[in-house]
């Protein structure tokens, strides 16, 4: 763990001491090295559930894929931001990369945490760099609104979590997950216990986001620059998922009844947000709502608390992280060229950028969960486990899959096919950097078809 964490912290001196000419090269190379080193975590050598490096930071089959995703994403974020940050003064560029690196540090410590309080603190700490990225570097006046929504939704959700965790500490004496997994399931019947249950989960449900509390997500995904959108969609949402899976361990047996309304809300959210996607005019907004739709499926999978549910949730989280980030990068390339996020104005791009049309095609097919991609595997496992929980859910999840296919194809056809309007004829061609970015997003998704054991969690 420290072999990744210390280099990430050393990224700060790299950023501030590089010469301006080499800043982007050096930070990209440094973060890529960290990413490659983090791949060693994928080799699971421990016989226990945890590959413990010390008492406070450890990896387990849940956090390993998420950690690798986080480390993989930092060089991609730096690659994606290079173009639009370039005109700014050098200290502001350094500040931007510092924010991304600090986000990385907090995320590594969050995913690797063994104490719930450390997880909570890192969970909260990731809000600050993200808020700064959204409100300082966003493109429109609406970014202030977006930052407010983002901050206050997440804070309002996580304050009960703090109280719940302190109560748990009071009753069990420890908050270390290594110990809590062996604690006796307590008989919890009173209303106070039910509110405690809700308090533990609300923060993560808001972060996922669950359908009823998802309003911050379209705003917070649309307004920030590409790196902000990437990290939000790919990793920060998964913090919610990871937190939920961790908390579920200690929340039995109340979850059997209390999870009911949240599962229903999640299932309904798949359909509702999918339908909203069909009516979106803004490219990034469509991808943001599609994130809500996929994460609602993940939330449902976690809340039914079966092995297949957890497995499906982790697979879908990793696959969605990579694909959603890829879609945001593609949307950003269109935005940097046409200066508009509307889908009406940037159409028929296949004629102008044929290779990029390939990336759009693969990304959209992954988004609609085409077999044999891991997106489908995750979705299938979740749908199956929910069918086991209650056969009626198949109507909702099935319709949801249909609508997902609908809007993904709509996105592809609107942006790539059809006649290209005459005002986008003179667009500058794609850089190698952008193609590299897309390859580094999509090739892992394709490679994961061959070895899904890396993402299966501890349930198999």
């Amino acid at each position, binding site marked *: 763990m420290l072999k990744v964490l210390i280099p990430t912290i050393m990224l700060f001196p790299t950023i501030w001491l590089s010469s301006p000419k080499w800043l982007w090269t050096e930070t990209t190379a440094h973060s890529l090295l960290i990413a490659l080193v983090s791949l060693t975590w994928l080799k699971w050598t421990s016989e226990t559930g945890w590959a413990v490096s010390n008492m406070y930071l450890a990896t387990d089959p849940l956090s390993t894929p998420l950690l690798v995703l986080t480390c993989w994403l930092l060089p991609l974020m730096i690659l994606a931001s290079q173009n639009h940050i370039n005109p700014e003064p050098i200290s502001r560029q350094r500040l931007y990369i510092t924010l991304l690196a600090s986000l990385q540090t907090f995320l590594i410590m969050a995913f690797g945490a063994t104490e719930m309080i450390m997880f909570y603190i890192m969970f909260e700490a990731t809000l600050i760099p993200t808020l700064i990225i959204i409100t300082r570097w966003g*493109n*429109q*006046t609406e970014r*202030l609104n977006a930052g407010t929504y983002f901050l206050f939704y997440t804070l309002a959700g996580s304050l009960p979590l703090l109280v719940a965790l302190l109560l748990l500490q009071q009753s069990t004496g420890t908050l270390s997950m290594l110990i809590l997994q062996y604690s006796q399931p307590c008989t919890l019947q009173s209303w106070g216990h039910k509110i405690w249950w809700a308090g533990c989960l609300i923060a993560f449900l808001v972060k996922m986001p669950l359908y009823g509390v998802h309003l911050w997500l379209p705003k917070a995904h649309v307004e920030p620059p590409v790196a902000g959108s990437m990290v939000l969609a790919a990793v920060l949402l998964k913090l919610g998922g990871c937190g939920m899976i961790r908390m579920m361990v200690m929340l039995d047996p109340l979850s059997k009844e209390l999870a009911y309304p949240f599962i229903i809300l999640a299932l309904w959210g798949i359909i509702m947000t999918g339908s909203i996607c069909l*009516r*979106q*005019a*803004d490219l990034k907004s469509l991808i943001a709502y599609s994130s809500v739709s996929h994460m609602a499926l993940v939330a449902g999978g976690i809340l039914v608390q079966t092995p297949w549910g957890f497995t499906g949730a982790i697979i879908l989280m990793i696959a969605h992280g990579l694909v959603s980030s890829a879609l945001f990068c593609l949307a950003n390339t269109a935005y940097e060229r*046409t*200066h*508009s996020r*509307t*889908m*009406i*104005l*940037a159409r028929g791009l296949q004629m102008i950028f044929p290779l990029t049309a390939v990336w759009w095609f693969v990304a959209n097919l992954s988004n609609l969960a085409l077999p044999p991609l891991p997106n489908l595997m995750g979705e299938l496992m979740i749908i199956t486990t929910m069918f086991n929980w209650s056969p009626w859910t198949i109507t909702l999840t099935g319709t949801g899959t249909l609508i997902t296919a609908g809007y993904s194809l709509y996105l592809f056809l609107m942006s790539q096919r059809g*006649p*290209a*309007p*005459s*005002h*986008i*004829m*003179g*667009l*500058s061609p794609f850089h190698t950097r952008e193609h590299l970015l897309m390859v580094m997003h999509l090739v892992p998704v394709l490679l994961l078809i061959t070895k899904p054991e890396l993402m299966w969690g501890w349930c198999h």
Partner: protein
Amino acid sequence: MAAWRKLFASVSAFRAMNAPCRSFKSSCSRGAEKDFFKDLEAQFRSFREKAAAAMPGSDWSPFELNPGLPPERADVVIVGGGVVGWSIAYWLKRKETVRDALRVLVVEKDPTYSQASTVLSCGGIRQQFSLKENILLSLASADFMKNINDHLGVINEDPVDLQFNHSGYLFLASEKVAHIMEENYSTQRYAGAKVTLLSPTQLKERFPWLNTDGVALASLGLENEGWFDPWSLLNALRRKAVSMGVYQCFGEVTGFRCSTKMAETLDGDFFNVNRIKYVNVRMPNSLEYQPVECAVVVNAAGANSGKIAAMLGIGLGPKQSISGIPLPVEPRKRFVYVVHCPDGPGLDTPFLIDYSGVYCRREGLGGNYITGMSPEETEEPDISNLDVDHEFFQEKVWPHLAHRLPAFESLKVSSAWAGFYDYNTFDQNGIIGQHPLVTNMYFATGFSGHGLQQSPAVGRAVAELIIDGCYKTIDLSAFDLKRILLQEPILERNIV
């Protein structure tokens, strides 16, 4: 609260009292430090005042945004808030598939519209052109205006009343040009205009107040022709467009920020192709400007379109190349005189246009008429201001007018005004389309006096170009800008 404020006031007064003591210790090195503290205190004081005002009920906000600034980003920026600009904005919003798909911004230099061609126009609409496209445009616009409340009606607001007088246009042709009138007549009928030809005797029967001396043939529009109030149309379009979500900004476009690429022709010439990234909009009476990030810009600036095009380098290149051909739109001043004649022709007076070039129409119900004439090419009035030349009326307009309408031998000029045509010096017809050197600017200008009557249909055509990529209802490829570059004019065969 009040006590707290008093306390702070006394503290600041105390500090102000101490300031002279501090100044005795001042030396050159402490000067900057003292200024810093003074500035700081001034800022604290103003912040306190603002915070005190920010009790519920006040509209103080921590961000000092100028409310007149345009948004930082828009998808389509329409330069020019005249009737063509607002028509394009309205149709863009009407054609978008999903609500709020397009963010449209209309930038208008003058909120009072004091020099805008739209509001200074006579407001006539006719289908009696020789080009099929012009006829179709006017027909479609007339249809739009007859059903204006279906198009531009806003719920809970007053219905739109354009005061459309369907009195028709009456063109008079002399012997020399009667054959042109006949050819135009068949084109107009073929395109669907309801026009009829009249012989001098029929003319005298229909309009006994007319002197048919020298008239060989006349052509009268029976439907969809007449005049209306341009200010009402402008406001109706604006109200509806704003209700559909179009942003309006009063400011002047002072420049563009483009990204430029070099392109090579087959002959080996190099020229720069621009793509507009930002439009710089400057606030009125201020140096403050906002760069608006945009995807598409529409040049509907009327008489000032040439200046906007010059900001992008159109016309500023070497003389023999494409970039050396400027946009041939310039302002031309035209005078309009309001005359009062108690014995003049009655309610059925059409918009009369004589072969000498003079025109006259009824205005209102009190015996007032609007009249004027296009000056010769060589005698164009000065365009630096909108002053009226009354000598022009006395010497040029009145003789022809009195000859044609004997009742006008005794009349009184009650008032007059002048307005600009966005005159297309190349062929006096509209320019719609794109320039090869600017990839994302659309032009909709140069209508040379027909802009108002064609504006609803032109708006729809430009919206089709932007959203659908091609013309869907009326094919206006004849009006494309490339005819200017290829030097192929399409001229109206008018009789005047």
